[in-house]
């Protein structure tokens, strides 16, 4: 049985495509709050998110949400068990309004979870639009939004179903400093309020160190470090594999 605050456990996960092994026996856990997942391009970060959320079938190992195994479940069933996620490029329905796109985060859950009534859904969407400062855009089609707002809408949609764990794939990529603040501050508040567990893939190390109480580092599909940011970012093999001497000072 995992400790009470651990929401997601990855055990000995192996993923291969053809002859290539992309993830090699990765094990770690995600507790409440933010956990950072970093590593160089091609390290297997997005593959790991895909394996956790059911988009890729692992050849070995398992994933637990709380104490319930997710392995071999299809993505929509995993989402209904309480796993939300975003993608590197926002995947919104262009013709639907912001309100409708956020609502879409709940639509797949209604009817499966009897606790989620329509009224509760409406209230939650209104709350998210207000918290993430999206009210001005609510009736605009997603296609008309700037890229930064599309990213915020996707995060709001991932949070709409009140998941136990959220996987964020490079939420700050392509955003300016002010836009990052606009996304991150309300996200932090929401995570604290709801006691969410977030696994965040991000190349902005300053942001990762600011948000996360723990960092896991992948390199060539292997977990090479797992611990508090201040310790992990000073490890020589992490610096060599990913950061470079200049960035290591940030940690």
């Amino acid at each position, binding site marked *: 049985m995992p400790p009470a605050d651990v929401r997601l456990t990855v055990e000995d996960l192996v993923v291969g495509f053809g002859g290539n092994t992309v993830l090699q026996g990765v094990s770690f856990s995600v507790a409440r709050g933010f956990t950072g997942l970093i590593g160089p391009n091609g390290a297997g970060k997005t593959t790991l998110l895909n394996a956790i*959320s*059911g*988009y890729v079938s692992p050849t070995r190992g398992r994933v637990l949400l709380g104490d319930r195994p997710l392995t071999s479940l*299809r*993505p*929509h069933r*995993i*989402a*209904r068990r309480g*796993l*939300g*996620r975003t*993608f590197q490029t926002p*995947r*919104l*329905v*262009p*013709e*639907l309004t912001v309100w*409708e796109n956020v*609502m*879409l*985060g709940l*639509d*797949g*859950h*209604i009817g*499966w979870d009897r606790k989620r009534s329509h009224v509760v859904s409406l209230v939650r969407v209104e709350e998210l639009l207000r918290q993430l400062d999206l009210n001005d855009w609510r009736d605009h089609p997603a296609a008309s939004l700037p890229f930064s707002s599309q990213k915020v809408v996707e995060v709001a*949609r*991932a949070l709409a*179903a009140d998941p136990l764990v959220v996987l964020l794939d490079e939420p700050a990529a392509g955003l300016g400093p002010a836009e990052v603040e606009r996304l991150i501050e309300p996200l932090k508040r929401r995570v604290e309020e709801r006691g969410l567990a977030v696994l965040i893939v991000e190349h902005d190390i300053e942001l990762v160190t600011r948000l996360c109480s723990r960092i896991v580092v992948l390199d060539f599909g292997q977990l090479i470090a797992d611990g508090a940011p201040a310790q992990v970012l000073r490890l020589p093999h992490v610096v060599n594999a990913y950061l470079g001497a200049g960035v290591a000072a940030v940690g």
Partner: protein
Amino acid sequence: MNPAVRYGAIGFGVLALGAGVFFAPAYLNAYLMYLLTWIAIYAIAGTGLTVLMGWTGQIALAHAGLFGVGAYATAYLAGHGWPWPLAALTSSTASAGLGALVGLPAARLRGFYLAIATLAFGELLHQAFVQLTPLSRGPQGMAVVPIQLDGIDTPSLVWYLAMVILAAVMVTLTALGRSRIGRCLKAVRDIEPATGSLGISAMRYKLLAFAISAFLAGLAGAVFGQLITFLTPDLFDLPLLVIFLVQLFVGGVNRLSGALIGAIFVIAVRELLQSHVVSSLVPALVGSGQTLAFGLTLILVVRYLPSGLASLPARLRSRRPRPATLSPME
């Protein structure tokens, strides 16, 4: 616009339209009523394609066959003493079941491969109309028992029936498009890989769209039987599929109004091509030449007006010059 004025205008429009539909048989000649009924029937069938191809992004080429299932099954059941509404509902439901069956390959097939699979299913249905002579009477054809209601002649009754069904379908689908189901269908069309992460089973919604589309095709086919009164397999062959596709793309694939606009277009063009003037000038456009003309129209529309005629008002609005604004320097 003030909401009271807006709702008043809508109410007045609905009343005027209702009155027009009600009194049309009294003022229009029988042939024109026949064409208008045909338009309404094609519009019902077209809305099914809007749901499936426009909203859900699936390619389905069995629509003519499923239209035929509705026509034949309703005629068969009504011919065996079933009340017409029950026969039509049962046949449309059977058509929906077959539609879901057509949709099963959609779990794994996409694009060209799905098109071929559904086209083959449509052809299979057409062959069934030819070969299953105990049910369909094959190429000899099947007479349709006309519906009757005291005080109304059959053609007027079929007109009212078609328009009531069309109105009900339009209202229902408009609500559906704005509902949770409508949003999920559009998500399957635009962001299918991401739907899983939202708890949405893309397969479930694809099957639902196939079933809704086939139900509407079957329902339209049931009314079509009453209009045409005699069914033969060639009515539900490839040329009808081409007409449905032209209707869909000319009208506008994403909009329900496109199904109606497209239906008006295909019936009007067909009448034009059959008119004495055109047929004497270009004899090739009579008969199978019509399919060729529709096929060419389809190519031109997909190339130059991909969103269809229903999108024209919005396109024109976006091109209208905006009032000049003064920059701070001025």
